[in-house]
């Protein structure tokens, strides 16, 4: 009887942890297989341990170039989407204007649409206009689909801001520009940072829209996609593992710093 209660009480914990395992299993496989020395061109079956790929990550033709390109696109797309998105979010929260509903819908729709639809439409436009596909078309597309996410993140933050703070700044001799720079922007910063981070992750990892708009330009996700057909080098797993580890370490460090600051100051 007591055992039954115990099981009942911990059923949620067990189920939750199983889901977590399901989520993390592929990452474990990716990590393990980054130390594999496969026989053929594909890295799907375990052969024997080797650190070759870790020592020579750029030895595969095109991999590091594609990685560099992906980073470059992600940085510019983040910058563009963050600037445009922050402006839009401020306009939406702070002002009353006509066509508000239409603007909101225009921002919501890209998030509610399958990527393949957006990708296909955008390609249709580019083909019709005779635009050459490449770096710029990819960048345009990335800014477009990241924009909505930035708007949403910044909007949430600005909405929760007390309008009296800006009034207080004005009352304390800060003109409109000073108020924005000294008060509004610093307080909205976490929202803007969250939006930017999301935009970077989305852009860096995007495959579907890139695949349609890149022409012969190869970003990292496209390189991985191609390799699934041609043969998967172990270095892909090295990159995947390294990204995972670096990101987790960053997040953990950030939370640790945050915790310590909180403990120190209270």
């Amino acid at each position: 009887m007591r055992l039954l209660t115990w099981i009942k009480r911990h059923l949620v914990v067990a189920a939750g942890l199983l889901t977590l395992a399901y989520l993390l299993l592929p990452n474990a496989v990716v990590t393990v297989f980054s130390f594999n020395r496969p026989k053929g061109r594909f890295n799907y079956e375990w052969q024997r341990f080797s650190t070759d790929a870790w020592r020579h990550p750029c030895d595969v033709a095109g991999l590091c170039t594609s990685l560099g390109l992906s980073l470059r696109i992600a940085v510019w797309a983040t910058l563009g989407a963050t600037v445009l998105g922050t402006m839009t979010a401020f306009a939406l929260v702070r002002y009353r204007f006509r066509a508000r509903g239409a603007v909101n819908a225009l921002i919501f729709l890209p998030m509610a649409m399958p990527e393949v639809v957006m990708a296909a439409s955008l390609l249709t436009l580019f083909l019709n206009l005779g635009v050459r596909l490449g770096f710029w078309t990819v960048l345009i597309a990335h800014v477009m689909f990241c924009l909505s996410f930035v708007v949403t993140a910044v909007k949430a933050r600005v909405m929760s801001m007390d309008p009296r703070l800006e009034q207080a700044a004005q009352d304390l001799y800060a003109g409109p520009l000073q108020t924005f720079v000294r008060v509004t922007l610093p307080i909205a910063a976490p929202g803007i940072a969250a939006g930017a981070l999301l935009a970077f992750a989305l852009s860096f990892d995007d495959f579907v829209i890139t695949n349609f708009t890149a022409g012969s330009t190869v970003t990292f996700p496209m390189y991985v996609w191609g390799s699934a057909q041609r043969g998967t080098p172990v270095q892909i797993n090295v990159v995947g593992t390294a990204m995972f580890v670096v990101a987790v370490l960053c997040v953990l460090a950030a939370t640790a710093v945050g915790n310590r600051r909180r403990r120190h100051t209270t």
Partner: protein
Amino acid sequence: MQTTTTPAVGGGDVRLTGISKRYGTFTAVHPLDLTVPQGSFFALLGASGCGKTTTLRMIAGLEEPTQGTVHLGDQDVTRLPPYRRPVNTVFQSYALFPHLDVFENVAFGLRRRGIKNVKQQVAEMLELVQLGRQARRKPHQLSGGQQQRVAVARALINHPEVLLLDEPLGALDLKLRRQMQLELKRIQTEVGITFIHVTHDQEEAMTMADTVAVMNAGRVEQLGTPTDLYENPRTAFVAGFLGTSNLVPARVTARRGEELVLTAGGATLVLPAARCTVPAPAGAAVLAGVRPEKITLTHADDAAGIPEGRNRITGRIADAGFLGVSTQYVVDSPVCPGFEVYAQNIDRDPRLVPGAEVVAHWSPAHTFGLDAAQDGDAGTAHAEEEAA
């Protein structure tokens, strides 16, 4: 304590002339004239939505008046944006900048005006509000009372000609509130700046301010010293909003020298003619008011012992609430149901319990007369709403 510098400009009165504010069809503030003398502690008192905060915000420049002008001394500031006005505000719930520490919050106004060396001034100001040791804390790490003091310091350090306080004590608990009332009063006396204080708490307004303006539905009902407002309310709203008043509907029967003789449901009351706010010829209807603490209760059996010449009302005690210092009685009388009487607990008459027949009597000098066209319950409903 001496503050470092004297106000930059030679100050002056705050003058509002015909100022009003409309939002669409709703009039928040009806055209209103008001002069706040320099150096005074002025309170705008009223229930929520009476227009007091809007009035304050028009002085601050956060709200543009629909009509009328705002003058500080000789300067017309009506069209000046808030950051060009020598006026500072202590906001409701303080509006401290969450991303800046206490020091930077207080230094904010000085820095915006391009003052480089702020350290000394900020330190002195923090001393004045007794927050020297919290300079490097963030606002969210402070208690409510400390946050309130930062808000005051942040405004005062700029030596404004006028300090505006928008319900500055609303978020504090009762005990802290009492303490901060004294503190604010002390600071005002020390710096000598004009304070305009918006509040819905009549006790707060009465203890702190030299002059109180009672506002109702976008209008100033009455303006005066706290004592004046309490002893000589000119409207039923003021009578009910500041403390408690018994208002007895009555009719004037005759004028006898300096006194008016009234009849109210069989009882005869006397009212000094000078204390009646409306012209009262014989036959006119008035409200005869009296404060509960001015009334004495005597058991009906002892009625013969009541001195001649006092106003009397007979009735039955409906309820008695013992408060330690005093006892609050509710007397039901055919003249006025729910007649309230506060009796000091000096010699308690054990017969004064619910159900007892009593005579309530008071000196005619304590009676005031109001326009009978008003709602006798005005003001009281608001006060209850606030208390809830």
